[in-house]
């Protein structure tokens, strides 16, 4: 058995179903060995997108996404994808081919120190120096990627190690790591303290983040808040933990969130952050949230707690396990007055939004084209109940976050890194993870053009993810920034009129749909979503729209 055979065997032991990647000489032994297994391979069109696809796959399955690329330029192209996954704590194992181990360090053709390059945004990295270490390293890598605060792990394997012979292959039962032992169980004293505080609180609120998804703890969290009637808000990464119209849900907080959600946070006397960083995007002034409030911070990563503000009660552990404990504890509470207040805020806020929307769609707003808010609403309501909505980055992302209606579905986006071009490959990964679910990627025309080569991948493998392009012919969010901060002194944001997406769809044998105004949005969206053939929906909007 060769080292490459051993790698493939490790992937089988880890029940890996699919590898996203791009070959080159340094990884050919691996791609040769994988042919003799049932593991599916997907050839993306650029390595970055392999990582994004693996990320989409990981988010939907809750399992570790796997990527394999070649040395040098292949590995370098992967970097943005790894950093994006790291920022959102996505479990991933990235295998990179490397030049011959005897030549490493001498700057030979296609040599790059990839483990050095990604050091600060992987959870861990390995350089394999001996083929017999392969089983142990893979066991550890999958363990590290998927436990504690999840994240990408990189394994760099020189080509000669892939070709070396292994006398015997024994896959370890478990990763025996002397140093790495993440906390899973929450400390019971702290857990009881949280419950005690909750029983004293008059105006508590839960702020849920991406950690709830990562822990697979959605049901436990919802059960807890429903049982005790506790209001909930979320961060961008925590969208779709709660259904949008859940009676106890008050929207996304932060600069781009709902005003009534932020108001709820400000007026609360107790905030429970759950798998959410107290990060700059969601909490603009971390110091404020500890003022006159009891702050509880629940996170699997102890280093996240107290990083931006000191909580009164830190609680480290897996969210699913902690909420299971919470649910076993009974306490008396009556927050109905508080809930009434928040309901009033929410109704006012929603009424204001509806009125604004009505004005916009009846074309009293002087904007050309379709109204992006109306479009996103309509799209999300037309989507299947459990559909996956993948938002790209830019104005389109902000409109999506604030207006997309989630029922039983899933919302995902590149929250931590804000990487343009994430949506389409991530949607591919999500669709591969669960072909029975409807998956829709929504992106701007800038982000779309960063990844439109992946239409080839979608067609080749018949990956039926739907693509929506919000067409404003500019880098909208940057333009909006220049509008506010540089008084319309626009610089390098014009994208021009190309490509002609109608013709592009032709090149890929896809169907083309367009929305140019507020008439018939629903009809076009329905036809687009129902089309069994891969299709793109282009939505023309005014570049002056602000998000």
């Amino acid at each position, binding site marked *: 058995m060769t080292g490459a055979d051993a790698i493939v065997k490790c992937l089988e032991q880890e029940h890996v179903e699919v590898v996203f990647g791009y070959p080159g000489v340094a990884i050919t032994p691996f791609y040769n060995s994988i042919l003799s297994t049932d593991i599916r391979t997907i050839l993306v069109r650029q390595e970055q997108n392999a990582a994004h696809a693996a990320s989409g796959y990981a988010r939907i399955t809750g399992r570790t996404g796997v990527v394999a690329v070649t040395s040098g330029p292949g590995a370098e192209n992967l970097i943005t994808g790894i950093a994006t996954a790291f920022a959102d704590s996505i479990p991933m194992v990235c295998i990179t081919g490397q030049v011959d181990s005897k030549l490493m360090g001498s700057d030979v053709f296609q040599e790059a120190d990839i483990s050095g390059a990604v050091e600060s945004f992987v959870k861990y990295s390995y350089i394999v*120096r001996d083929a017999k270490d392969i089983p142990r390293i893979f066991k550890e890598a999958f363990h590290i990627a998927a436990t504690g605060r999840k994240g990408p792990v990189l394994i760099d394997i020189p080509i000669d190690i892939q070709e070396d012979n292994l006398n015997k292959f024994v896959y370890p039962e478990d990763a025996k790591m002397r140093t790495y032992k993440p906390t899973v169980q929450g400390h019971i004293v702290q857990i009881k303290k949280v419950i005690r505080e909750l029983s004293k609180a008059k105006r508590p609120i839960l702020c849920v983040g991406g950690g709830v998804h990562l822990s697979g703890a959605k049901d436990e969290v919802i059960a807890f808040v429903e049982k005790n009637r506790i209001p909930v808000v979320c961060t961008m990464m925590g969208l779709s933990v709660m259904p949008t119209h859940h009676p106890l849900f008050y929207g996304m907080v932060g600069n781009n969130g709902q005003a009534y959600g932020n108001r709820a946070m400000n007026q609360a006397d107790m905030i429970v952050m759950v798998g959410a960083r107290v990060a700059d995007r969601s909490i603009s002034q971390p110091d404020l949230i500890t003022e006159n409030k009891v702050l509880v911070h629940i996170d699997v990563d102890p280093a996240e707690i107290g990083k931006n503000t000191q909580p009164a009660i830190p609680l480290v552990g897996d969210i699913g396990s902690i909420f299971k404990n919470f649910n076993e504890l009974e306490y008396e509470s009556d927050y109905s007055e508080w809930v009434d207040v928040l309901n009033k805020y929410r109704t006012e806020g929603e009424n204001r939004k509806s009125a604004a929307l009505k004005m916009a769609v009846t074309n009293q707003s002087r904007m050309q084209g379709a109204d992006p808010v109306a479009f996103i609403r309509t799209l999300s309501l037309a989507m299947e109940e459990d559909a996956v909505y993948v938002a790209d980055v830019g104005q389109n992302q902000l409109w999506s976050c604030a207006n997309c209606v989630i029922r039983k579905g899933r919302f995902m986006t590149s929250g931590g890194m804000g990487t343009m071009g994430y949506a389409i490959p991530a949607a591919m990964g999500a669709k591969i993870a669960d072909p029975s679910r409807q998956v829709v990627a929504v992106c701007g025309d800038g982000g779309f053009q960063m990844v439109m080569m992946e239409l080839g991948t979608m067609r080749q493998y018949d990956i039926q993810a739907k693509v929506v392009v919000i067409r404003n012919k500019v880098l909208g969010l940057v333009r909006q920034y220049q509008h506010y901060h540089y008084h319309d002194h626009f610089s390098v944001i014009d994208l021009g009129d190309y490509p002609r997406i109608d013709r592009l769809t032709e090149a890929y044998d896809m169907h083309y749909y367009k929305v140019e105004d507020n008439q018939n949005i629903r009809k076009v969206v329905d036809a687009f979503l129902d089309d069994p053939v891969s299709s793109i929906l282009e939505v023309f909007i005014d570049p002056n729209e602000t998000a």
Partner: protein
Amino acid sequence: MRKKVFQILVDNTPGVLSRISGLFSRRGYNIESISAGVTADPRFTRITIVASGDDDILEQIEKQVRKLVDVRDIRELKPEESVYRELAMIKVRADDNMRQNVIAVTNIFRGSIIDVAPDSLMIEITGNQGKVDAFLRLLHGYEILELARTGIAGLGRGTEHIVYID
């Protein structure tokens, strides 16, 4: 700004030192000194880092370092519970006239002369940082040609805080 001495026990994996020092540099933590060496058990390395920052930063340092996969243990070596030592080697210009004076100062500090050349002396001195600093101050009037300091190494007193390795 406070100073803290951290003792870090790490798995002796390739690149472990760069992982630790990289963490400090990218997060903008201040290192005053760092020293490292293998422990009695060759699988582990003990690193002593003197870091400075406000209380929040020092707490983050401890948490972020603990999070690194290779890190077995990190703890503060509190001054009252620990012993610190640093070694310094100092090459001082000293001709026949000055040699005796330098030797005398060195003796007071229980340092030793470890090399003699016609126009210079090399001194070795070991002690806590305060002692080394004080010695260097005493050499003020002399011309220091070269200076090498190891950074401090430290251990907790007694057997209470020992990390036993399986």
